[in-house]
């Protein structure tokens, strides 16, 4: 019993505790926002790891999909549930935002998953450096396209998401963003874990290790690539949507190559092909970013330098391609790492 439900219990307790502390305002808003960014980063890092780590590709434009999700969720939310300058009166009763919110985030995810096809389809025939360029181009194309859509603010950005959150809090007063970020983060790790630990998901590793053998030994490589890219970008879209609502404002410039680089850093820091590694590195990286915030621009010298040093002395990252269960076998007593 303990083994089967230990993780579930821990997660529910943690989530409940967090919600309670946020509700009672016992944690500062600053710490809450850092925790929420941590969640967003966990989603970005684990979703990119699926493609860059497990499948061994080199996707450098992850932020582009985050952008798609951010914009689609934000626009839908503001259009449907709040009064604003661009879209006018809300289409539905703002009170319904409470129930619709997960749908908004998932809609952003679906849109981002479709955008992922931009990269999935070229990946059938190309790999490595050439695919990297396509992902970079895709990132720029997405940002550029939004910058040209003046109707939703173009490069100036889009806002109004705060009123959606207010509508949610008016209906039932709870720290909704904290709850939703927590839920989606857990969901992301859960989905990815179940995908890659199944025999179906091991096809992804097979493609990474020997694509030709995989194709000949009955793995439908194109289908697996499509699924993996779409899941990866879809989850990035979810992260984007959550990011947009947490901040309350989006602009295309915040999803450029620098943001994609952040995601790359987290994946390689944690270890390609290690889900627990990506979670760990996302947490560490968020803390690092906050700790270095005082240094201003030096931050962006320290972080790349850290990664350079990492590449020199421990390129496989913190966890290599192992999971927590491999490093700490005693954990297996408490949880069935399947």
């Amino acid at each position: 019993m303990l083994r089967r439900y230990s993780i579930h219990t821990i997660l529910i307790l943690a989530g409940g505790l967090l919600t309670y502390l946020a509700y009672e305002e016992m944690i500062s808003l600053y710490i809450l926002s850092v925790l929420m960014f941590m969640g967003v980063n966990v989603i970005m890092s684990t979703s990119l790891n699926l493609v860059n780590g497990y499948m061994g590709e080199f996707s450098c434009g992850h932020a582009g999909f985050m952008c798609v999700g951010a914009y689609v969720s934000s626009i839908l939310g503001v259009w449907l549930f709040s009064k604003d300058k661009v879209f006018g009166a809300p289409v539905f009763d703002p009170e319904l935002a409470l129930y619709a919110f997960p749908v908004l985030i998932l809609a952003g995810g679906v849109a981002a998953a479709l955008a992922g096809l931009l990269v999935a389809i070229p990946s059938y025939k190309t790999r490595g450096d050439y695919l990297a360029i396509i992902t970079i181009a895709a990132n720029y194309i997405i940002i550029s396209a939004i910058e040209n859509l003046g109707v939703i603010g173009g490069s100036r950005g889009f806002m109004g998401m705060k009123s959606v959150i207010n509508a949610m809090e008016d209906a039932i007063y709870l720290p909704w963003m904290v709850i939703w970020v927590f839920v989606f983060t857990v969901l992301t790790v859960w989905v990815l874990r179940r995908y890659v630990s199944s025999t179906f998901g091991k096809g992804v590793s097979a493609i990474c290790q020997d694509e030709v053998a995989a194709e000949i030994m009955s793995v439908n490589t194109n289908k697996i690539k499509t699924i993996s890219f779409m899941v990866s970008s879809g989850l990035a879209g979810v992260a984007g949507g959550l990011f947009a609502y947490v901040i309350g404002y989006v602009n295309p410039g915040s999803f450029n190559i620098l943001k994609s680089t952040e995601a790359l850093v987290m994946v390689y820091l944690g270890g390609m092909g290690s889900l627990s590694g990506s979670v760990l590195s996302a947490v560490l990286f968020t803390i690092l970013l906050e700790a270095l915030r005082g240094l201003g621009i030096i931050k962006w010298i320290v972080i790349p330098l850290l990664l350079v040093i990492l590449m020199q002395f421990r390129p496989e990252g913190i966890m290599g391609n192992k999971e927590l269960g491999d490093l700490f076998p005693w954990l297996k007593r408490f949880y069935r790492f399947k």
Partner: protein
Amino acid sequence: MIAKQQDIQTAPVLEIKGLTQNFGGLRAVSDFNIALQPGELAGLIGPNGAGKTTVFNLVSGFYQPSTGEIRICGRPTSGLKPHRVTALGVSRTFQNIRLWNDMSVLDNIRVAQHGKLGYGFFHAVARSRTYQTREAEIERDSRELLEIFHLDKYADEVPKSLPYGLQRKVEIVRALSEKPKLLLLDEPAAGLNSVDVQELIRLVRWIHETFDVTIWMIEHHMDVMMELCERIKVIDFGETIAEGGPVDIRNHPAVITAYLGDANI
């Protein structure tokens, strides 16, 4: 209708007609023809660069033929991607062992059955009944197969930690896990010492007797060929130069010339 079904049942396991393959200006395979009946153990030999592996690659679907037709159990393979060709009932090993080196031996066997998993992404994530049943079946079948070949104690090892001879065996077992009608073995004895070669001969013979499978083998090792194959085809520069039983081939002048240069030496 009944006649057609019968056709497919008595159809040769592998039928190749007029197969020609050009790579740019180079003709790698020239007018290759063969029909393998169910249960045969045939061989394909020839000097290096003769085009043998190219023929196997064409049968696997890795290349599309320039001209000619390939049928597996009566079904044409033209235009099919390799994983679909495999679904028609063919499986193979490779000249250089192509196991997935960062996955356990058991996983190697399991992933080879990817085409017959019977569930997809959503079932995997939801851990549905279908998923659980199929996963249990595949694990059970894979472990049984490993046991039959005395590889069960290596189930959780990674291939690169095994001796070369064992890796070769694992690769063959992996190919068998797909329950093929046609098993292609590409130079299975390559890189094996003489003890392992004898073991390999025993293994292939045992597979041939125990499983309902047609085996087609490329080999350079003459002992292996002579001991195992009932019928051998010889090609050189993409063209068929001889065909027949082991004894005929051994003494065939064209074969000797192809390997040694001149029959009169």
